[in-house]
C-alpha cells in the first residue's frame, strides 16, 4: 500500500532532501503499523512522540491503510 508521510521539526534529518512538512510517498506491506513505518525510516522510536494519521492523533501501533497521510513529530521541536 501507499502512504504519504510528513516529518516535522528535527525528524527531517531522517529523510534526505526533505523539509518540515513536505510530503513524500512510501510503499508499505499490507497491514503495516505506524511502528513499521518508523522502523523503515530508521527513526529511533523514542524520537517520534506524536503520530497523526489523517490529521488525528493516533498511537504507534495503529494500523495503516492505503492512502493514509502520516505525520510524525518529535518530543520537542524548536528551541
Amino acid at each position: 500500500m501507499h502512504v504519504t508521510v510528513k516529518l516535522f521539526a528535527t525528524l527531517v534529518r531522517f529523510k534526505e532532501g526533505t523539509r518540515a512538512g513536505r510530503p513524500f510517498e512510501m510503499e508499505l506491506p499490507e497491514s503495516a503499523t505506524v511502528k513499521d513505518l518508523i522502523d523503515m525510516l530508521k527513526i529511533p522510536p523514542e524520537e517520534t512522540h506524536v503520530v497523526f494519521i489523517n490529521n488525528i492523533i493516533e498511537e504507534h501501533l495503529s494500523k495503516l491503510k492505503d492512502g493514509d497521510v502520516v505525520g510524525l513529530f518529535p518530543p520537542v521541536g524548536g528551541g
Partner: protein
Amino acid sequence: MTVFQQILWGYELTYPEHWAHQPVQDADAFHEDMDSENESLEFGQLVVRGEWNWERKPIKPLWNQHIGLMAGMIGAKEVGSAPWKLGGAIGLEAEIVLPKKDNRRLWTGILTHDFRVLHFMVTHPKEIRETFEPVATKVISSLRFLYQIQGIKTSREGIPLPPGYEAVDPKSVLTDIADPQNWRAYSGTAGMGALQAFYIREIPLHNWDMEEYVPFPSSSELGFARLQLRRRDLKVTLGIMPYDPSGTITSSSPANIVIKIA
C-alpha cells in the same frame, strides 16, 4: 439527558436533566441542580479536571502525584487502588477513606489517553449513596474522547480559536512589539495545559502543519508554549502566553494567545 462537550480537553459527558454543569477554575463540576429539589449544601458532585501530559508520564507516578495532592488537601488516606479502563483510556481508581468526623464518601480516579490525563473525583454524603452513586457512575461511563469538534471559530487566517477568547490589541499582551499589524492577540482564561491540548488536536484538523512545537512546561527556557505553523505559503508562529495575577506560573495558569504572521 444533556451532552457536555469539553472543547479544550476534547471529551464529552452526558448527564441527566436534573443535574447542572459548573466550571470551577480549571475543572468542570457536575451535580444536582441546586434550583431543583435539592437545595441544601448536602449534595453530591462529580469533578473532572484535565492535565496536559506531553511527556507521556506513566500512570503510576501520575496516580501517586494525584493521591498525594488529595491527601494533602483533605487529610484522606488511600485504601488501595484498582486498574480502571474507560472509553479507550487506562487508569487507576480508588475509594478514599476520609477522616471519621467527615460524613462524606469520596471516590477518585485518573485516566490517561494520548497526552491527556483526566482526574475524577466523586464526593457525596453517605446517606444519599444509594441514589447518587448509580447516577454518577452512569455519567462517568458516558465519557467519550472527541477527535473532531464542530463549530470551532477561527482567526481571519484560519487559526482555530479556543471558546471564550476575544481579539484584543496585540500591544496589550506583548508591549514591546514594533510591528503590531503583523500580530493578532486573543485574551481568555483557559489554562496552559487545556490550550495546548486544544491546539495539538485542532491544528492538523484545520489543515495546518505543525512544523515546530515547544511545549510548556519543558526543558526550554522559553516561558511559554510556541507552535510554528504552515499552511501552503503562509507561515505563522502561535504563542500560548501564561499570565497569573499571583505571579506563580504553572501548567494550569491562564493564558492568552498571540499569533505572528510571517
